[in-house]
């Protein structure tokens, strides 16, 4: 048993597990910002009074929500970068990282949009009517009246989306980003002696990252709960 433990500890000398997890955290952070901004914009389009914008928003959600994330990432890297030669950074690794962030953002924006929209649906129609009745046009009414109240209903589905995003950063391996799942593959290949421990380390790592996200959304949903 102590031999196994020694072998296991040597794994961390051989591979930089923490640095790999750090890549996943950075992917999560930037893709969360990107998908939140894009998702809010598409949600705005889907509730706007302009029919063509609504159609565009609906089209976006149906396209990206129903496409596997792997396909999106592989398409961006092999299709858009490799074939069309569009680069997002002169640095080789940074380029892959940026494409991965973009792909994750495009994909999760569809889910963010639907989370926000489900929140908007919890706001009584009278709130929007009252906003319009005092002369607010669509954008100020959405920003000042609808979205702040929609956030209360959207926080739990948004948290779920963030958790899914965190775990989906492992798909960035498909976009040639060296993150924890690609490192795991390497470790399994060269250190099959501690294969069970490798799985456990990666699983535990994600649990440690995701649990606070869950706690945070639970706290936020209580904090924002509608006082009735």
């Amino acid at each position, binding site marked *: 048993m102590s031999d196994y433990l020694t072998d296991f500890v040597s794994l961390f000398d051989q591979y930089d597990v923490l640095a790999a997890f750090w890549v996943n955290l950075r992917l999560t952070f930037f893709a969360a910002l990107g998908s939140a901004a894009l998702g809010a914009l598409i949600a705005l389009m889907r509730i706007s009074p302009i029919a063509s914008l609504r159609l565009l928003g609906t089209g976006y959600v149906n396209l990206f929500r129903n496409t596997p994330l792997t396909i999106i990432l592989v398409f961006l890297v092999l299709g858009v970068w490799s074939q069309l030669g569009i680069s997002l950074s002169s640095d080789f690794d940074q380029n892959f990282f940026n494409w991965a962030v973009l792909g994750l953002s495009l994909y999760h924006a569809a889910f963010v949009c639907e989370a926000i929209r489900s929140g908007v649906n919890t706001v009584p129609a009278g709130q929007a009517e009252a906003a319009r009745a005092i002369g607010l046009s669509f954008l100020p009414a959405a920003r000042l009246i609808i979205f702040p*109240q929609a956030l209360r209903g959207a926080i739990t589905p948004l948290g779920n989306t963030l958790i899914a995003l965190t775990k989906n950063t492992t798909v960035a391996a498909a976009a040639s980003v060296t993150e924890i799942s690609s490192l795991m593959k390497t470790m399994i290949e060269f250190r099959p002696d501690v294969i069970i421990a490798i799985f456990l380390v990666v699983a535990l790592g994600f649990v440690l990252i995701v649990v606070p996200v869950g706690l945070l959304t639970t706290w936020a949903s209580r904090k924002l709960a509608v006082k009735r």
Partner: protein
Amino acid sequence: MSHTTPPAAAPASAAAGTAEALVRMSHVNKHFGDLHVLRDINLEVKRGEVVVVIGPSGSGKSTLCRAINRLESIDDGEILIDGKRLPEEGKALAKLRADVGMVFQSFNLFAHKSVLQNVTLGPVKVRGKSGAEAKKEAMELLTRVGVDNQAEKLPAQLSGGQQQRVAIARALAMEPKVMLFDEPTSALDPEMINEVLDTMVALAKQGMTMIVVTHEMGFARKAADRVVFMADGMIVEENTPEEFFTNPRSERAQDFLGKILGH
């Protein structure tokens, strides 16, 4: 407490003259699917006039009220407010709505904003007033409707009657040309109806142009210049309150009044 508003309102109405109607609906039609909810509506409301719209449920009176600030679109016909045709969309419509106050049956106060913020939001964000000025005027209005001591509370912490009075203050803060009331007391407990009606009567006495959808006969008798009776999407009868309630001409009105005054 309200030394600014009534004197400002009075000369304005005198200067503009009384001949021109403030709200004019001509040949307005609207359908909800197969249902013809507004049938060839023609209605004029003069500056300073208080018109009560009355009728059985489903008669289209709420739709008529909501069409005036285009919360409901119309199929054809024309609605003019202060001589201007109601715009269809966008900034022009928002600008016009700012001049038309609306009070809803279900209050619709902004649930995440304090009472004071509910009243200052429009003046600050739409009229571009400074926060301090809007707050001062809002406190005057809240005093006028008698809820100034609740200014920092959230709407949900107020009684229905108080909420509706805040909603009236919120509409007045925009200094509207005309106020629309869509069954303002229908969602209230009986003991709270009077506090809201008193506020409305006071408003009518100060010369505000009002269109009020209500079943409150007392209010109509006390404050209305004219009663408009609607049934099946049509204006069936128009008369002074006294004449309408004591001597209704149409059969529909007689039948309706018989039902609501019978007990």
